[in-house]
């Protein structure tokens, strides 16, 4: 945990976003409290609080006074939309650069993608 150069609160926020996208955290689910987060991962509580503040700003989490933090309605759909926008530049471009270095052709890549079957189908079948 916490390997990258990114500030830890970014990494925590990103981990929570990941859990929402994968469905591990559903809408209206309660997320761990700052204290639970701090003691579980042995990090400063202010760091955990910063991560939550960032997610509240994005509308991914919302706060119920005196109860805790919850996943906002529509959070997964919103995250998916943001990530789709960045998917090609952030994820595909490096893959394409690497493929070019390795002398792979566009046909090689499309053949591989085609062999993976229908992506939409794969998504739907996921539990």
């Amino acid at each position, binding site marked *: 945990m*916490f*390997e*990258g*150069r*990114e*500030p*830890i*609160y970014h990494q925590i926020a990103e981990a929570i976003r990941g859990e929402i996208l994968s469905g591990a955290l559903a809408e209206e689910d309660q997320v761990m409290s*700052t*204290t639970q987060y*701090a*003691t579980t*991962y*042995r*990090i*400063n*509580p*202010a*760091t955990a609080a910063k991560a939550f503040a960032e997610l509240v700003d994005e509308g991914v989490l919302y706060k119920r006074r005196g109860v805790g933090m919850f996943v906002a309605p529509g959070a997964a759909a919103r995250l998916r939309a943001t990530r789709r926008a960045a998917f090609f530049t952030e994820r595909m471009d*490096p893959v394409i*650069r690497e493929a070019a*270095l390795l002398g792979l052709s566009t046909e090689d890549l499309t053949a591989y993608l085609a062999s993976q079957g229908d992506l939409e189908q794969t998504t739907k079948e996921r539990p």
Partner: protein
Amino acid sequence: MNGYPVRTEGLGMSYGRTPALHSISLDLAPDRIHGLLGRNAAGKTTLLSGLAALRPASAGTILIGGQDPFENERLMEHICLIRESGDFIPDRRLSSNLRYLQLARPTFDLDYAESLLEAFRLDPRKRAQTLSRGQASAFGAIAGLASRAPLTMFDEVHLGMDAPSRQRFYDELLKDFVEHPRTIILSSHLISEVEHLLETVTILHDGNVLLADEADALRTRGATLTGPSALVDQHADGQTVVGLRDLGPTRQVTVFGDLDEESLRSAQADGIQVGSVPLQDLFIHLTNDEPREGS
């Protein structure tokens, strides 16, 4: 009760004619966990002794909660320094030591201290002088936590404890800090275990402040570049290199400073691995006076 802010300006301290601290200026915000890092003899204990008013300053000022702590009895009740040596009454039982602390400190929580004794498996009937090094450290940690002092300082107390006890100490510290925020200073030269607990980091070196910053900011100010020597050199050019290591044709440099994220991305695009620098490594690089190996 809230934590105290800690400020020093031009603070100098010396042992006889030997200066130990030169013109230290610190500004530690209240209710945060601050790290004070430095190698042996860097001045950590001297600085903490000054903040706890155990030694007079030879120059400059110390303000704790806006007041000078020196010979300020009311303020001293609210400043707790736990030293590795432990400052307990050796021939008294742990239970009497705790009762004594309760009399001396208005914020001391005896019930909490007793529950911690149990958590650390210390027998309250034992006399302080019969504790092993690890047990004495744990007892120090307990005294510091239960003091709930608005300024609580732990001077390398965790070093004597074994790994499970240290983890217990970190867990208790975090849990109690959330419920009772106060200003905490942890001094250490063993950094990897505590780096994520800290909000700010101050590195002392040879009696001077080498670096003071937010822990998160420090993490982004360092990076390692790993790849073919020539390519790494090309990308490290113009950045401050604090460490260098060669493994055959592969070179790893550690750069530190206001890094140019754009150039790091271009390094990555050229196939160089860009990694994070653990605080411990950064600390070693920055405080290592030996000539650097490699080239």
